C-alpha cells in the first residue's frame, strides 16, 4: 500500500461564499465524512494547512493582482473581479493556506515522506488567471505547485490532468507557451458551459504548441465517452511527454447528480479516470501523483467520490 497524504484543515472552511453559493464549506466536510466513514483516515497521512510564501504565488500571479486581491478582500468587499467570486475577509488568507498546503504536499512527495496525495482545499484554483479571479478561483493552486516543483525540486516536465467538468482556463493560459508543462483537460463542451474556453483546436501557443490538449464532452454523455477520449488523447500524449510528476485538477462536478453540468459521469466512471491517472503516474512519474480539489458540488455524492479517490491513491 502507498503512503498517501490527505491535506485537510478546518481553516479551509473559513472562506465564506455567503448563502446559496455552490462553492461552500460543506463540500470539504462531506469529503472528510466520506473518508472517515469508510475507515480510511488511519491509513492516510493527515497533512495540515500551511501558509504559502508569497514568492511562490508570484511565480504565477502578478504582484499587482495579489495586492489587489488583498485590498479588495480586507476592505470587506463581498465579490472580486466577477459577481461569481463571493468572498469574506478571510478569503485572502484561506487562499494562501490552500496554495501553501499544496506546496507542502509537493515537498513531502519530493522528499519521499509520502508517495502521493489528495489535497482537499478551498478556494479552488484552475479558473484563476495570472491577473484575474474567475469562477470561484483566486489563486491557481496547481499552477503555483507546478512552478514550485520546477524551481525548488528541479522537476523538468510536469503533467497536469484536469478532469473538472469545466475547462481550466487559468492553468491553460498560464502554461500555453511553455513546453515544460503539459496541460490536458477533459470537460463539457465550452459552447454549453462555463467558461467558454478549452476548444479542441486550442493546442498551445508558440514554444508550447502541442503541450496543451483539450477533450470536449457533449451534454448527456458519460463514462464511455470519457474513457474513449482519455484513451485516445491523454494516454498517447503522456507516453510522448513522459511527465516526471502528475498534478491532477480534481473536479467532481461532472457527476450525473451534480447540477453544475449536463454530463453524466457515474461514481464508477470517476474511479476509472483516477485509476488511469494513477497508472500513468506509475508508468512515468515514479508514482508521484498529487490531486488538488477544484469543483464538485453535489454534497450527497462527494463523500463516496472522495472515498474512492483516496482508496485508488492508497492502492496506487
Amino acid at each position: 500500500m502507498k503512503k498517501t497524504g490527505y491535506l485537510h484543515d478546518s481553516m479551509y472552511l473559513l472562506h465564506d461564499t455567503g448563502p446559496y453559493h455552490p462553492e461552500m464549506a460543506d463540500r470539504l466536510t462531506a469529503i472528510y465524512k466520506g473518508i472517515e466513514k469508510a475507515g480510511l483516515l488511519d491509513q492516510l497521512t493527515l497533512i495540515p494547512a500551511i501558509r504559502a510564501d508569497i514568492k511562490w504565488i508570484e511565480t504565477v500571479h502578478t504582484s499587482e493582482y495579489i495586492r489587489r486581491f488583498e485590498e479588495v478582500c480586507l476592505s470587506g468587499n463581498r465579490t472580486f473581479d466577477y459577481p461569481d467570486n463571493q468572498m469574506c475577509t478571510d478569503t485572502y488568507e484561506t487562499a494562501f493556506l490552500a496554495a501553501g498546503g499544496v506546496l507542502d504536499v509537493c515537498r513531502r512527495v519530493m522528499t519521499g515522506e509520502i508517495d502521493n496525495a489528495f489535497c482537499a482545499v478551498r478556494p479552488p484554483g484552475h479558473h484563476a488567471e495570472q491577473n484575474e479571479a474567475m469562477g470561484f478561483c483566486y489563486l491557481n493552486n496547481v499552477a503555483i505547485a507546478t512552478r514550485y516543483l520546477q524551481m525548488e525540486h528541479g522537476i523538468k516536465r510536469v503533467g497536469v490532468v484536469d478532469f473538472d467538468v469545466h475547462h481550466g482556463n487559468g492553468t491553460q493560459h498560464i502554461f500555453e507557451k511553455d513546453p515544460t508543462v503539459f496541460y490536458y483537460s477533459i470537460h463539457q463542451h465550452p459552447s454549453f458551459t462555463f467558461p467558454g474556453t478549452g476548444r479542441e483546436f486550442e493546442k498551445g501557443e508558440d514554444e508550447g504548441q502541442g503541450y496543451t490538449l483539450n477533450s470536449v464532452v457533449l451534454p448527456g454523455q458519460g463514462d464511455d465517452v470519457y474513457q474513449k477520449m482519455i484513451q485516445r488523447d491523454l494516454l498517447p500524449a503522456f507516453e510522448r511527454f513522459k511527465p516526471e510528476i502528475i498534478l491532477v485538477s480534481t473536479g467532481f462536478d461532472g457527476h450525473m447528480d451534480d447540477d453544475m453540468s449536463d454530463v453524466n459521469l457515474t461514481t464508477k466512471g470517476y474511479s476509472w479516470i483516477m485509476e488511469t491517472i494513477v497508472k500513468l503516474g506509475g508508468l512515468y512519474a515514479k508514482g508521484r501523483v498529487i490531486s488538488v480539489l477544484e469543483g464538485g458540488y453535489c454534497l450527497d455524492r462527494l463523500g463516496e467520490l472522495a472515498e474512492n479517490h483516496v482508496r485508488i491513491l492508497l492502492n496506487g
Partner: protein
Amino acid sequence: MFVSQSMVSKVITIDKDASVFEAQEKMASNGIRHLPIVNSEDILIGIITDRDIRSTMPYRLIKETGSAKEREKLAGLKVKDIMTQDPQTIDLTYTIQDALLMIQKKKVGAFPVVDDNGKLKGILSIRDLLRAFINVLGIGEPGTLVGIEVTERVGQLKKIVDAVTEENISLGSVLVARTWDEGKRAVFPYLLTNNVVRIKKKLSDLGYKLIDPMKWSLDRIPKKP
C-alpha cells in the same frame, strides 16, 4: 452599427501597373486576400483577390510544368489585366447588417468601403464582421449559455431578463431563434457566470421549459404541431 466602426481603415492597396507576382507577394506578406486599386486621387478603380491570381496562374504552371515562354508571359502580366473593375462597394453609412446581407447575396469575401466621391476609405472583410459578431455574442468573456423555450407572447423576454437580474447575473448577450415550434421561440441568454443552478431552477419554477442542450439551434426548421 456602421461599417466604418468595424472596417480596416489603413487599407493596403496596389498600383494598377504592378505585376501580378508583386500583388501575390503583397497579399502573402500581409496575410490578406484582397487588394484594392486606386488612382492618384484615391478613387477606387478595381480590386484584385487571391482567387483572381490563383485562377490566372495555377501554382503548377509556374513552379513545374510551365514553359519558359509561358512563365515570361505571366511575369509580364499586370494587375490591371486581371483586376475586377468597378467592384461592388459599400458606403461608409452602411450598417453591419447591410454588409452581412450583402456578403451572403453577392458571395464575396470583402467589400471596399467608399465615400460619396468614390474615394477608398476602408475595407470590410468577413473576418471583420466575425470579430463584430463574436463581440455581440459575448463569447469572449467567461459565461454559460442557457436555452429556454418561450411562447410567442408579449413580455416573455422581460420576465427572463428580470429573473436573471434578480439573481444578480450579468447578461453577455441574448440570442433569439425565430424559427422554432409553431407559436414558440427559443431564447438563449449568455450568462456571465459559472453559477447557473439557481437561475435554471428559477426559470423552471416560472414555467419555462429549458431546452436540452443537444437540441439547441439558432435556425432550425419549424415543426408544425
